[in-house]
């Protein structure tokens, strides 16, 4: 038994610092999962302390990121100077890590220890997002004591591009290592990339902890050729290999990494040597050579791996049972997608003929000399589509080569050769059969006048189209970028057919029927025209205003119900706009009637009830409310629009009720404070504004919903406990959610049908007066929702969408819009408007992650189907409302398939909720469905067989009791596969038991007291309180806390004023008070070094410049800081610091800018300075 080392800690120690149950992963972590995460973090901490390397290989969706961050927090708490670098595979995941670290520190870290967590909950150490290798060198050399978040794609280091670009890059790097011989960085010379990486290494500090996310991407290890050049650059940058011969040229080059923590759910593909490769890349392979010793057997390898790696298996509850992944996933390996384990077969003679033709062509092709009867898995285009791939001159946006999610031009350029870039296409990814298929498809079109049928695509489109009826979300992975478009287009056409049928059935009367037919024809004509040329991809709308909506030709929904809609028509889009406008006939429909809510009465009783509780007559109620409303409306009340008018009367009534000393009064005051942010416009107005009876009795969707308990429970459940402000906040958030979903999502179709039938026409302006007088639209909408609830319980409809949202409200908010939780209610409509804008029934993604689509996919409603390339295989969580994954384009590696499924197999997934609910059916339909659609009579079967074998092999290697893995070859030989003995390729369904569990010895360690206790943190707040008071006593005005750790104010200096901010920061765990005082922006041509120097030299005050290239100016500030030691010295030190900084800043402002700007002018600049300082 190994004795605990002094640096080790135990779980109890970690628990004092970390509370994993406090909101990780959207606040849905159970106690058991939280305990598992905590023990994982401790085990990894101890492994890193013992041997400097550890591997976390928990199954997908178990919160590896949080476990790793827990380890990082533990290490830093006990060693505050710990330098950390996080290596993410690509930019969206890099961003996610930064976001998660902030969330983690804010929620999971219990103590504001000034080491991990600063006062107010921010990370104590600054975060840096690194965008390139030069960026890494520059940022690290400027200030190495920050947390660096880098991405793997930056290490591609492209050498294509203009000479000027390469020269600029070289010069930028040389500025960080000016002593380096510049010719070493000549891009024309051999070894350029290696040298560049080594030069960056010389600019880096030692990194105490490197976290490598999705480390399986590095399984090829250290190779200086072909596809692993990126690995070589990475290895050299971080000094993973000694370079004795170049030491003189690269002074200081060495291994920069002290400890490394690898993360991946799929750490290997088929051999343990791949683990060694990963260790070796960073210089950690010494002592692990057994991993690459081919003479060792499987069990011997496992024994070694157990020292390095931990892996926990995911489990879900289903009744009394605990199911492992092998049990709660249902794999459709037979190829079919309608009936489990049935194969997919061509349905018609035409389809069979097409398949036969294609198979013949493919067979001829593979039989040719080049291919030798073999092909690489995933690289036969015909498996996905027969659609002709167009050449470079006709490139559509979607044909731009996929770059696995790389987001920058630098990243995008790497994977292509100069010839590929010149030709505009990338042959490697197009597939071996592309030319043959193109010829065939062209002939078919020419001869028969139609596209060649593709049975697999046709089948999946037909199956997925069911989602428009059932509401079941589906995630579809394809290999080819063009397949995203093709599938999306065909599915949109299916959706359109259903929507047309619905509108034709629901709209009453010949006029409406004729009008809608006209609209459909117009749309189809526009669509045909648009799709003839460049397809109007939704991604293009990113060019429109940030919070704007735009129609598009993608679907009838996007054309008729989104954006402005067609001209001259009372379209769904125009109604949606009216619901939002303050002055339309529907402007109050989605408001709440707060007065009825406070009084607990229906709208027809509101005046009488007010009279009762206020103890005055109804006439007096009316008069007083109208007088108060006039004050809210101000002098121009005559032109004030209806929603504002209603709110003024509501505010007037709440103002009167707020005078009461009971619960009604308290609630009214809270609503006035939190919801009615509009101030009284003119207190002096003493007239009445008629309309109290109308606006206090206004029936809105929500006032009417309160009268229907069953619907209310489903759509707008009210929190029963807690203080009223919290209840109100949630109630309003929920209301805004429903309102926004109604305006922007599927429910707008129902609203359109109701209004069109009332107006009997969709010609704009046809019956505007009638529209204004429509009685009780809210009631009719609720009637329709009630009908859907009762009559269509298993169908996708507005009720289902809204009810799902209500039932999972907290999960949705925390995952998609956590900002809402602490947001002013006035900001909520804007945040939600952006989150839910530009909805579409089918979404496609390739090239770049669209964050809005990702968020919408993990909410109820549109999009119901998301078609994507492997762009989304990592990083984005899509699990909350989706439990079906289609591998339409198969991936070769088990890790890729596992990562794909991992998007929907996560803590808090729809599958988990369904299996654990009372309504679980117990059938296989409750499980997470994984489809491998393929045709049974094609060579694709051979491909699938190999992939299944790999999947099973991976499971065998990582789990106990499943046998011993067999070796295999990397490509598929048509000749050999055809005669090979058919092995068992069924999915493993037995319970899984990890071979690499956390054992008790891993979490054994010392019980250590925290370096900083919660009491210490509380005292720090008190110290800043005292400094805040001091600032006021020194003559500063407007001194207040902007955040917990930040005091701002304006110092009065004789006749002048100087804004400043005080920040409590930390240095190696010690509190440091920083004072920042902004001066403003000075254009470069006006800047005078000598003048600036003449004003410096004051103790503490340092001049801080930020170059602003865009405006050719410098943002100028004076900054200074001082250690806070014994508390009794705080005020003296703070006073000296503040005086030095603000007087120097003021003097410099006077001389340089000849002005005296106040906080109002400089607040933005101050915020920017503070952001950097934090």
């Amino acid at each position, binding site marked *: 038994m190994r004795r605990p080392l002094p640096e080790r800690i135990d779980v109890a120690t970690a628990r004092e610092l970390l509370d994993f149950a406090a909101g990780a992963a959207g606040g849905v972590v159970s106690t058991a999962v939280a305990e598992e995460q905590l023990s994982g973090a401790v085990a990894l901490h101890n492994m890193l302390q013992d041997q400097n390397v550890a591997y976390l290989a928990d199954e997908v969706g178990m919160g590896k990121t949080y476990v790793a961050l827990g380890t990082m927090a533990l290490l830093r708490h006990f060693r505050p100077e710990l330098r950390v670098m996080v290596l993410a595979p690509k930019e969206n995941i890099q961003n996610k890590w930064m976001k998660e670290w902030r969330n983690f520190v804010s929620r999971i870290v219990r103590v504001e220890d000034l080491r991990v967590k600063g006062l107010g909950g921010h990370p104590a150490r600054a975060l840096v997002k690194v965008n390139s290798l030069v960026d890494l060198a520059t940022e690290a050399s400027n200030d190495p004591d920050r947390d660096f978040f880098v991405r793997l794609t930056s290490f591609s280091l492209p050498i294509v591009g203009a000479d000027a670009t390469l020269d600029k890059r070289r010069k930028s790097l040389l500025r*960080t*290592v000016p002593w380096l011989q510049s010719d070493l960085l000549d891009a024309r010379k051999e070894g350029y990339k290696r040298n560049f990486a080594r030069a960056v290494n010389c*600019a880096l500090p030692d990194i105490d902890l490197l976290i490598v996310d999705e480390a399986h991407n590095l399984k090829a290890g250290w190779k200086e050729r072909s596809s692993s050049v990126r690995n070589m650059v990475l290895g050299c940058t971080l000094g993973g290999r000694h370079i004795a011969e170049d030491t003189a040229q690269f002074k200081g080059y060495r291994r920069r990494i002290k400890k490394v923590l690898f993360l991946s759910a799929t750490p290997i593909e088929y051999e343990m040597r791949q683990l060694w490769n990963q260790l070796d890349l960073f210089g950690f392979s010494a002592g692990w050579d057994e991993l690459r010793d081919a003479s060792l057997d499987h069990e011997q390898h496992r024994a070694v791996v157990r020292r390095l790696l931990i892996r926990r298996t995911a489990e879900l509850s289903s009744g009394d049972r605990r199911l492992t992944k092998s049990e709660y996933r249902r794999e459709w390996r037979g190829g079919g997608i309608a009936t489990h384990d049935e194969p997919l077969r061509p349905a018609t003679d035409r389809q069979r003929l097409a398949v036969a033709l294609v198979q013949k062509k493919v067979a001829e092709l593979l039989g040719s000399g080049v291919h030798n009867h073999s092909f690489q898995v995933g690289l036969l285009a015909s498996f996905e589509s027969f659609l002709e791939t167009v050449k470079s001159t006709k490139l559509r946006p979607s044909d731009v080569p996929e770059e696995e999610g790389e987001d920058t031009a630098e990243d995008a350029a790497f994977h292509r050769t100069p010839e590929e870039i010149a030709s505009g296409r990338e042959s490697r990814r197009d597939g071996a059969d592309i030319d043959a298929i193109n010829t065939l498809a062209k002939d078919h079109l020419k001869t028969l006048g139609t596209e060649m049928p593709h049975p697999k695509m046709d089948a999946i489109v037909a199956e997925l189209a069911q989602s428009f009826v059932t509401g079941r979300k589906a995630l579809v992975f394809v290999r080819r970028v063009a397949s995203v478009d093709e599938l999306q287009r065909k599915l949109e056409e299916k959706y359109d057919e259903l929507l047309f049928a619905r509108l034709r059935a629901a709209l009453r009367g010949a006029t409406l029927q004729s009008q809608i037919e006209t609209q459909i024809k117009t749309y189809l004509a526009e669509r045909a025209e648009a799709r003839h040329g460049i397809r109007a991809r939704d991604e293009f709308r990113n060019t429109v205003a940030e919070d704007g909506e735009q129609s598009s030709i993608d679907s009838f929904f996007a054309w008729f119900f989104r954006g402005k809609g067609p001209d001259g028509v009372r379209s769904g889009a125009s109604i949606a706009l009216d619901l939002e406008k303050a002055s339309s006939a529907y402007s109050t429909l989605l408001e709440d009637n707060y007065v009825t809510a406070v009084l607990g009465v229906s709208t027809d009783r509101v005046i009488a009830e007010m009279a009762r509780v206020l103890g005055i007559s109804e006439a007096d109620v009316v008069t007083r409310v109208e007088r108060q409303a006039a004050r809210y409306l101000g002098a121009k009340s005559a032109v004030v629009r209806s929603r504002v008018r209603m709110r003024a009367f509501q505010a007037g009534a709440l103002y009167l009720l707020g005078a009461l000393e009971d619960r009604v009064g308290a609630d009214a005051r809270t609503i006035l404070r939190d919801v009615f942010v509009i101030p009284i416009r003119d207190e002096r107005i003493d007239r009445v504004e008629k309309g109290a009876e109308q606006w206090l009795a206004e029936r809105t969707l929500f006032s009417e919903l309160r009268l229907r308990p069953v619907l209310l429970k489903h759509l707008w459940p009210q929190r029963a406990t807690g203080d009223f402000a919290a209840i109100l906040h949630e109630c309003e958030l929920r209301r805004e959610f429903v309102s926004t979903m109604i305006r922007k999502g599927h429910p707008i179709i129902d609203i359109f049908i109701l209004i069109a039938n009332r107006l009997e026409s969709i010609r704009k302006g046809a019956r505007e007066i009638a529209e204004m007088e429509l009685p009780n639209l809210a009631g009719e909408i609720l009637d329709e929702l009630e009908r859907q609830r009762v009559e269509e319980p298993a169908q996708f409809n507005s009720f289902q969408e809204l009810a799902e949202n209500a039932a999972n409200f907290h999960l949705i908010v925390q995952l998609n819009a956590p900002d809402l939780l602490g947001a002013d209610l006035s900001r909520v409509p804007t945040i939600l408007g952006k989150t839910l804008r530009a909805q579409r029934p089918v979404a496609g993604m390739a090239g770049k992650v669209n964050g809005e689509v990702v968020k919408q996919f993990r909410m109820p409603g549109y999009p119901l189907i998301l078609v994507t390339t492997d762009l989304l295989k990592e990083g984005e969580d899509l699990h909350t409302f989706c439990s079906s994954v289609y591998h339409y384009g198969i991936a070769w590696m088990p890790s890729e398939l596992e990562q794909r499924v991992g998007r929907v197999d996560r803590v808090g997934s729809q599958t988990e909720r369904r299996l654990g609910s009372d309504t679980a059916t117990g059938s296989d339909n409750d499980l997470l469905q994984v489809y491998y659609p393929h045709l049974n009579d094609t060579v694709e079967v051979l491909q699938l067989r190999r992939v299944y074998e790999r999947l099973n092999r991976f499971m065998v290697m990582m789990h106990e009791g499943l046998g011993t893995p067999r070796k295999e070859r990397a490509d598929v030989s048509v000749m050999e596969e055809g005669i090979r003995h058919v092995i068992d390729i069924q999915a493993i369904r037995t319970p899984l038991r990890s071979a690499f569990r956390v054992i008790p010895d891993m979490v054994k360690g010392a019980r250590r007291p925290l370096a900083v206790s919660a009491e210490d943190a509380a005292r720090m707040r008190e110290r800043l309180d005292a400094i805040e008071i001091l600032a006021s006593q020194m003559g500063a005005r407007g001194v207040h806390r902007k955040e917990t750790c930040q005091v701002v104010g304006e110092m009065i200096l004789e006749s002048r004023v100087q804004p400043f901010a005080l920040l409590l920061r930390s240095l190696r765990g010690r509190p440091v008070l920083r004072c920042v005082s902004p001066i403003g922006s000075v254009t470069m041509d006006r800047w005078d070094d000598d003048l600036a120097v003449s004003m410096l030299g004051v103790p503490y005050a340092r001049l801080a410049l930020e170059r602003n290239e865009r405006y050719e100016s410098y943002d100028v500030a004076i900054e200074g800081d001082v250690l806070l*030691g*014994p508390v009794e010295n705080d005020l003296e030190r703070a006073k*000296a610091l503040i005086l030095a900084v603000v007087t120097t800043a003021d003097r410099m402002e006077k001389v340089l800018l000849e002005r005296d700007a106040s906080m109002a002018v400089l607040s933005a600049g101050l915020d920017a300075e503070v952001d950097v300082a934090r």
Partner: protein
Amino acid sequence: MRGDWKELAKRAGYRVDSSDSITVTLDGGSVQVVRFRLEETEQVLRASSIIARRSVLAAATNDSSYRYAWERNRLSDLVGFTVDGRGRLIGETWIPLDELTSEEFGLYLSELARVCDWHEFRLSGEDTF
């Protein structure tokens, strides 16, 4: 405690040279010479250390060496950057002497030495000062 910074240095484990300077040895073995100047008020001690000569600094700067120094001041904690009369890049920190503990003094010193050493090595590839 005012003016007794040499006593503080001794208690913090440093040896003061005859020229009012201290040689700080860092963890990696490199050394940094820190010079001190007592301000007129005798309440604040300025500690400084040379980072790079004019020629070395020139190779790293786009235009003005002053601005090179000032652009780094936004990111730095406790230690500021400036350029002296001989065009050298200097790291400096201001130490309040009133009630200063030897532990605090040591922290100021080690931080200054660490930051200067980092920039010196990066700019020159050497440990010169």
